[in-house]
């Protein structure tokens, strides 16, 4: 195993964490969008804002880390990727601006009109961003980003059946993860009605997204037969792992194991990403750009790997502290925003 392989693993791990953490933040925004009228949706919106407020920026940094590590580790692949896919990347970038800025602005504004405007921007961009990011994954997985600068079709590379499938799947996955995570958050806030609401949503999206993911494989089979063959071949154990974890999650939700289901739901999603990685390895860009060929200078790769290792020693305890502060502290019932004014 080369340093480039290890860094590819780090990239995939970073992408997984981005999906599991920031994906859930986008999903929370989707539930905000679907929360209904101002009065009816207020409690749900407040739980969502409260859950993602302290952590979304840290969760977002995984994407920056993945992007910079991508160009450092595989410069020619990154150049091909970014130049061919510049349209969905620009759209995703605008979605990222809209989500992050509008969420902060809504928090800082006091009138209903402003809060509605920023809230709508936040929610709509929470829906759009995962879609575009999903189409980008679909473009890579279906082999539509050839090596070389802007060699691919700037439209059909990401507007094709596999990309649309991946984009919709990304939306579904984000919504599913958010619903699952929010059940426990609602329980910690002592909001029983919200627990029931997100429980229903987690079950519904779990069944829906799971079924759509499996049914959608027919699209992949027709549109990207090579990818499908690998998913059915060496990536099959991971596909089955995802399926199993998804089914277990449904059982855990119905039996009220709201903390444990976070792990299995995350596993169900992560295994999809890993299956993609396993299916494609060692080819980074179809048809023939491999990990070894695309890898940057070996000295740089080793240095960056060491730097990341040292950085992890700094980051891991900090991150655990951040999550522990907001996942363990129990707010006083009388100051809970979920109780106020209801």
């Amino acid at each position, binding site marked *: 195993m080369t340093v480039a392989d290890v860094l590819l693993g780090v990239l995939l791990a970073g992408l997984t964490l981005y999906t599991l953490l920031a994906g859930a933040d986008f999903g929370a925004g989707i539930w905000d969008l679907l929360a209904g009228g101002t009065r009816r949706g207020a409690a749900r919106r407040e739980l969502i*804002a*409260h859950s993602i*407020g*302290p*952590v979304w920026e*840290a969760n*977002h*940094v995984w994407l*920056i*880390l993945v*992007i*910079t*590590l991508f*160009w*450092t*580790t595989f*410069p*020619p692949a*990154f*150049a091909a*990727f*970014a*130049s061919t896919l*510049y*349209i969905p*990347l*620009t759209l*995703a*970038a*605008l979605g*990222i*601006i809209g*989500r*992050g*800025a509008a969420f*902060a*602005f809504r*928090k*800082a*504004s*006091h009138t209903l009109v402003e809060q509605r405007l920023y809230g709508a921007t936040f929610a709509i961009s929470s829906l759009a961003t995962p879609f575009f990011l999903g189409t980008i994954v679909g473009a890579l997985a279906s082999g539509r980003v050839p090596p070389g*600068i*802007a060699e691919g079709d*700037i439209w059909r590379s990401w507007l094709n059946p596999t990309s649309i499938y991946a984009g919709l799947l990304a939306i579904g996955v984000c919504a599913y993860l958010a619903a699952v995570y929010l059940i426990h958050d609602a329980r910690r806030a002592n909001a029983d009605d919200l627990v029931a609401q997100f429980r229903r949503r987690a079950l519904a999206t779990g069944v829906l997204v799971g079924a759509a993911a499996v049914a959608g494989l027919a699209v992949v089979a027709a549109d990207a037969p090579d990818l499908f063959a690998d998913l059915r071949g060496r990536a099959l154990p991971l596909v089955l792992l995802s399926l199993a974890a998804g089914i277990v999650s449904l059982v855990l939700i119905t039996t009220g194991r709201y903390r444990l289901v976070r792990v299995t739901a995350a596993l169900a999603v992560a295994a999809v990403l890993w299956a993609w990685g396993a299916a494609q390895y060692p080819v980074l860009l179809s048809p023939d750009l491999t990990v070894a060929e695309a890898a940057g*200078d070996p*000295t*740089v*790769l080793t*240095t*960056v790997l060491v*730097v990341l290792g040292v*950085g992890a020693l*700094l980051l891991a305890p*900090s991150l655990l502290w*951040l999550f522990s*502060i*907001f996942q363990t*502290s129990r707010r006083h019932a009388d*100051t809970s*925003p979920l109780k106020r004014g209801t």
Partner: protein
Amino acid sequence: MLTELLAQDAVPADLMAARVQMALSLGWHIVIASFGVGMPAVTVFAEWRGLRTGDAVFTRLAKRWAKAMGVLFAVGAVSGTILSFEMGLLWPGLMGRFGDVIGLPFALEGIAFFVEAIFVGVYLYAWDKVPPRAHLFAGLPICVAGVASAFFVVSANAWMNQPRGFDLVSGEVTNVRPWEAMFNPATPPQTVHMIVAAFMVTGFGIASVYAVAMLRGRRDRYHRLGFAIPFTLAALLTPVQVVVGDWAAHFVAEYQPTKLAAMEGLAQTQAGAPLSLGGVYVDGELRYAVEVPNALSLLAKWDPDAVVMGLDQVPDDQEPPVTVVKWAFQLMVAIGFGLLGLSLWWALAWWRRRGPPRSPWFLRAAALAGIAAAVAVEAGWVVTEVGRQPWIVYGVLRTAEAVNPAPGLATGLALVAGVYLLLTVATVLVLVRMARHRDAPVAPQEGVPEPVDSPR
């Protein structure tokens, strides 16, 4: 053949669109990022004074600034992300060849930014969840990481001015030495210049908000301190920045003489070169400028008779847009000296009377200083970026060779420009509203506006 012609046709307009988009995104981000670098220190200082003295005014200021910092940090996080996307989607020719060479500072920046994001989460949302002392200490990593981020990112830009740490063997990049690339000769002057500038933008920027309030008659202790803390910081750094700026100029004179010639609009290589103020550079000569004899040689080389290289030594196809660079440079210097004067006024008043200047003109000038400092930073970036043209990597790679050849970049620019316009309007509105709204909570889910001066 035909495709080649088409490609050539497509490039100039799209190259300009890509450059404008990059300038817009970078120019936007740099102002917000300056606050990201400087504001944590100012806020943590106020919090520390509040804890030490028990003076509630300091704590109120710290909470207010933390809230503004939360908005600015969120906006800065996303506008910075866009830049990392744009590095690839606008300049794949740069990233494909040199992505690994400049990868190290970006990996380090990623870690620093992570530290910042984590502790900002704690700092903004856990004010009442952790003990006061722990909260104060949670602010320190934000201060350190902000400065570190600025250092890493600017060192990558410095590399574009002084590309080092790799060998070119028949066009192939080999034998990369990442630390040498990161610590290239331009890194020390450029990073120090930018970090000091960030603190000045923060200091003058926050102070200008309170200057406006004081001009409107709100002169209680809250507003006086809200002005004095950031303004004093900026006033102390301004003379430092004049020295650092001189260092940076000497660096440019030695390492990037073309850029210096453009900054000064010096047409002919000559001994005892004059310093020219203003003017327009047309057809290889500078017109309508006021000249100070021998001053340029003296400033750039410490010798009034020294030879300074002019633009006549630069091949036509390697000449940057002179007038833009020259005016941007002079604007930056003029603002710098204006801010120096304002800082001296402040120092003099304290030295003479142990109090702030009494003239309303001081506050009027201070109210403008925040915008002026930000304009100076923009002008400085125009100098370093436009002054490097036509190179994206000085002497190694042309900007035109690095740009994404895909069609439609101009449309992308229009879209991005529209979003940034909305973002600007919204950011300004939110911050203005925030400055007017008194005693709002740090995080809205705290619900009721808490009595900020209550002992915890």
